[in-house]
């Protein structure tokens, strides 16, 4: 592809101020197709604000984001109309929340949750919607017999996998993840990470993942951004940053991680 070397998403000078308080300041980054970018830092460092800005859930005080749409045209995300923005959000993008209840409709069956995006983009054949939902449940290792069960009857790990299936059904090119493994026990985390690695590899997904867990960042991401007090203080290849941190704060962060 001729556009292969062009960034999928480019953020320039992103700043978000909450009154006099700082959300994040002057963040610039490029994200390429198929690339996994981890944003790490302690709580309050601005990583969630950054994620919300990138996912257009918040408007920045300054700065802008450009995105290469499916048709190859690069658009300014904050100049999109609301209808276009919503369409982008549920076709070309995904968002996996830490709390599955934010990403799922808890009163709607697993199949309905997966099918929602398809119906929103105009699918009107029950059989095909259900077929697609079954296919995706199997891919995220949820027993297909549970398709008509409510997510409230699912375990934490299953809910996260269902959330991923719900997002993946429209074959997005970019998925945002906010602490997707938070609150899960270690063996469940490992399976989820395996699943996400597989999806990234198979579908050439670009991912922005916010985590405070350096082990997750190391397993999943190609590149790493370290944030502190709303600013990016270090950035580089994941292995390079974690094995040979340059900034004193990053060194502290790495040495504080129990699993090293």
């Amino acid at each position, binding site marked *: 592809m001729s556009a292969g070397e062009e960034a999928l998403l480019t953020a320039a000078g992103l700043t978000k101020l909450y009154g006099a308080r700082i959300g994040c300041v002057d963040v610039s980054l490029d994200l390429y197709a198929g690339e996994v970018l981890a944003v790490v830092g302690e709580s309050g460092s601005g990583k969630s604000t950054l994620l919300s800005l990138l996912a257009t859930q918040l408007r920045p005080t300054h700065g802008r984001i450009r995105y290469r749409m499916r048709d190859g045209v690069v658009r300014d995300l904050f100049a999109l109309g609301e209808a276009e923005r919503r369409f982008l959000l549920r076709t070309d993008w995904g968002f996996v929340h830490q709390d599955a209840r934010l990403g799922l409709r808890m009163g*709607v069956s697993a199949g309905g949750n997966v099918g929602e995006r398809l119906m929103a983009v*105009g699918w009107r054949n029950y059989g095909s919607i259900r077929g697609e939902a079954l296919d995706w449940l199997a891919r995220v290792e949820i027993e297909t017999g549970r398709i008509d069960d409510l997510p409230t009857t699912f375990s934490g790990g299953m809910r996260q996998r269902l959330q991923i299936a719900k997002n993946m059904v429209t074959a997005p090119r970019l998925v945002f993840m906010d602490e997707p493994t938070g609150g899960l026990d270690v063996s469940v985390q490992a399976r989820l990470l395996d699943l996400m690695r597989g999806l990234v590899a198979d579908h050439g997904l670009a991912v922005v993942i916010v985590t405070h867990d350096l082990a997750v960042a190391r397993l999943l991401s190609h590149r790493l951004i370290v944030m502190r007090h709303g600013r990016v203080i270090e950035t580089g290849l994941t292995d390079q940053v974690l094995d040979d941190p340059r900034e004193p704060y990053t060194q502290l962060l790495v040495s504080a991680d129990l699993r090293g």
Partner: protein
Amino acid sequence: MTGGVSYNFAYLDEQSKRTIRRAILKAIAIPGYQVPFPSREMPMPYGWGTGGVQVTASILGPHDVLKVIDQGADDTTNAVSIRQFFARTAGVRTTTHTSEASIIQTRHRIPEAPLAEGQIIVYQVPIPEPLRFLEPRESETRQMHALEDYGLMHVKLYEDIARHGHIATAYAYPVMVEARYLMDPSPTPKFDNPKMHMSPALQLFGAGREQRIYALPPYTRVVSLDFDDHPFARTRFEQPCALCGARDTYLDEVVTDDSGGRMFVCSDTDYCQGRRTAAPGREAHDERR
């Protein structure tokens, strides 16, 4: 009127009626769109048709002939009291015959006899927002209407099929108006949905508590939502009306004794009565009209 207190024509003051008529005109101009209006206190509790009564009061003229039905019947409490209310406060002629009425106020049914040009049917609406139980935020449902963002409504129908094997929604079955606005047809049985499509009568919907008015001008396209492989189907009854023998009407189940006795009869009392008067003994033959 019995001396002493006298009301303005049709109870509401003229300025209120003008305001409501403006909302009605806007609603007619944008079929299926919910227009906010300043709902007045009426001498009846919310849930008893305050929206419909205000719409009727605003469009009623001295020469109108009014019919009021509740679940198809002219002789139930709600229907009788609203009919008497307008007979007293407006002095208009009332009727139980669908064809004689110029305005028909209804709770949850459309008469079986086809409506004609020049007639107006006024629906009492409890909850005008079809997306309400899927999305509780009014700010969000307004956005969804503005953006024609209606995928969620199909999720509801999907859930029906997944759970029951068919679309089990039997009343308040959502419709698309002129391929633009998603509309709640009020809690009419889905049996009546096809009657809304291309109806020659003007259809007005009033929700008093929720302060919304919406409308379908005559000859508006009204399509019930469905899936390609689970198309919309009108309710069918296995037996004919036990009184008039009609096979193409909406039936009510009536319990007749304490030992499980029951019968199914037309919900539209005027239609049923009319058939029995026109052809006595018809039930024995059980023939179609």
